[in-house]
């Protein structure tokens, strides 16, 4: 379970400061998919990076399975699988070599790496691509390899930043199926997306972010009812254009 309480993160630029995340709180429970929805610059990625121990919060508290990320970062990293939307694997290593490399860095045994390699190959239909240099793979297959890398350590917490960006329909389905399966296995999945249909289809609960603020969060049906919206798209624009910042 991920618990974010009053998270604030400010970036100090050369001539100014930008508060990317401004006092947000939410909880992503085990066995559910929590989606952070928002336009570019809303603070979704900063929130995910903070949870993944890659950024340090200015204030507030984040716990992952009860572990404080600021004091137990290594233990937290052991429990999470993280994938950033910016990740573009390239180079001449094959998916097999890359997965071995990350497994060895994670101090996994050879047998365990072999086992995980087989499981992920089946999960993401990578059999035909395992020994092809990554530079020669399509963007969809490359994205599947990236996800496989993130899931190599069999994490209990899965954090995906824009996981279906650049994927074709077939690859998107594979990722979506995986997310649903992970949820069914009782894992906690936190994902960010700006694709509304993905959020509607995959997420049990949704948090809508805009300019660093979490405008609203809850199960989709509840949010629609709360704001009298017909669908997620309507709700989304209603929240970010309707001056809801004044209420947060």
């Amino acid at each position, binding site marked *: 379970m991920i618990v974010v309480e009053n998270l604030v993160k400010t970036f100090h630029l050369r001539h100014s400061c930008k508060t990317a995340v401004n006092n947000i709180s939410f909880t992503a429970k085990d066995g559910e998919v929590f989606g952070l929805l928002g336009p570019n610059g809303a603070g979704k990625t900063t929130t995910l990076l903070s949870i993944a121990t890659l950024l340090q919060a200015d204030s507030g508290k984040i716990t992952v399975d009860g572990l404080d990320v600021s004091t137990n970062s290594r233990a937290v*990293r052991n429990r999470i699988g993280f994938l950033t939307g910016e990740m573009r694997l390239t180079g001449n290593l094959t998916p097999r070599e890359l997965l071995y490399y990350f497994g060895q860095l994670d101090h996994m045994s050879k047998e365990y790496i072999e086992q995980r390699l087989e499981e992920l190959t089946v999960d993401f239909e990578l059999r035909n691509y395992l020994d092809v240099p990554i530079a020669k793979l399509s963007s969809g297959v490359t994205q599947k390899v990236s996800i496989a890398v993130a899931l190599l350590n069999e994490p209990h917490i899965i954090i995906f930043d824009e996981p279906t960006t650049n994927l074709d329909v077939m690859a998107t389905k594979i990722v979506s199926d995986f997310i649903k399966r992970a949820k069914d296995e009782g894992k906690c999945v936190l994902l960010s997306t700006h694709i509304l249909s993905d959020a509607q289809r995959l997420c049990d609960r949704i948090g809508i972010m805009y300019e660093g603020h979490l405008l609203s969060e809850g199960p989709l049906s509840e949010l629609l009812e709360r704001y009298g919206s017909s669908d997620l798209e309507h709700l989304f624009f209603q929240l970010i254009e309707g001056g809801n910042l004044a209420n947060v």
Partner: protein
Amino acid sequence: MFNDALLILKKELKNLTKDRRTLFSTFFLPLIILPIIFIGMGVVFQSIEDKAKETTYKIEIVGNKDTAYREVLTKHLFWQEVGENEGDFKIIFGNNYTPGTRATVILSYDSSSRKNQIAAEMIKQSLVSYELELADKFLSLFNLSYEDLHTLKIIIDDTAQQAAQSGGAILAMLMPYFMVIFLFSGSMNAGLDTTSGEKERGSLAVLLVNQVSRTSIAWGKILYVSVVSLFSAIATFMGLLIAMTLPLGSVAFGSQGLNGGIGIGPLIVIIVSLISSALVSAGLITVIGCLAKSVKEGGSYVMPLYMVVVVVGVTTMYMDPSKNIFLFLIPIVNTIFVLKETFMGMHNILHLMVMLLSNLTIAYFEAKGVSALFNSERILQTV
């Protein structure tokens, strides 16, 4: 920690060895291109010189009807006497010259051609020979010869080390320059790609979420860039050695080539110097790569430093090995001077030690800096 760093080094090298283009441009290009450049230069120099010796020059001789000079001139080059303003060369004997009197001789020619420069040298030699012949004739009136005026026999005893005499001086001039240039440029691409490149591609974040310590990642990256940088410099060294060993290549160096080769001792000094310099260079580029938000930005920071290295290389090219100990504290400069000393057979343990101490200290602090950057949020900043 060291095992993880080695694992990162191994992965990066594996990736590099599979990339034929990078492999070629980093290692094989200097190995091939330098011999080609110097052999090409040698071929051109040799052919110009041969052509200059085989050409029949049109020469106008003014103010000297002496056939003796014409005979002397024939001994030095092929020529044909031509009329007024028809020649490539004009030799003007002034002051109403008659053989044996004092006169000014003007040699007029177009020096923009290398062939003409060589011919002019041969004509100058012919004038010196002619002057000697006239002097000999004059001295014979007093039962003397020109040889009788030579009371001193001058013998030059070159006390330079054997290495300096047998091509080492040329190596000392060119080799350090090329080696530090390729050493630095070798680390530029690898260093920026493995830091700001990974940052741009988003793969660094995944690496940082791993269980491996940030310090191990930093060391792994520095080791990788150092290895690439070192091998780039070694390829340059080998390329220049090949160029100097080949007959046509040595013509371009203006020497007899490299006689006697390089001993094991100097070779060890060269390798040790390059390793220490590669560590400094790799550390610096990696720090810059960590601070830069993109490869493009990193490139704009590194390029001025590359220019500094080029300037240092050029300005020290014609300098003699220095005894100023402070120069051996400055990275790159110290490597150039230690290499110069080594190629000239002037081994100085103190200079070597000062260079190693200075380079390794700087490399250590650079590595600490990289490690600190990997342990901070700054490593992920791309905007």
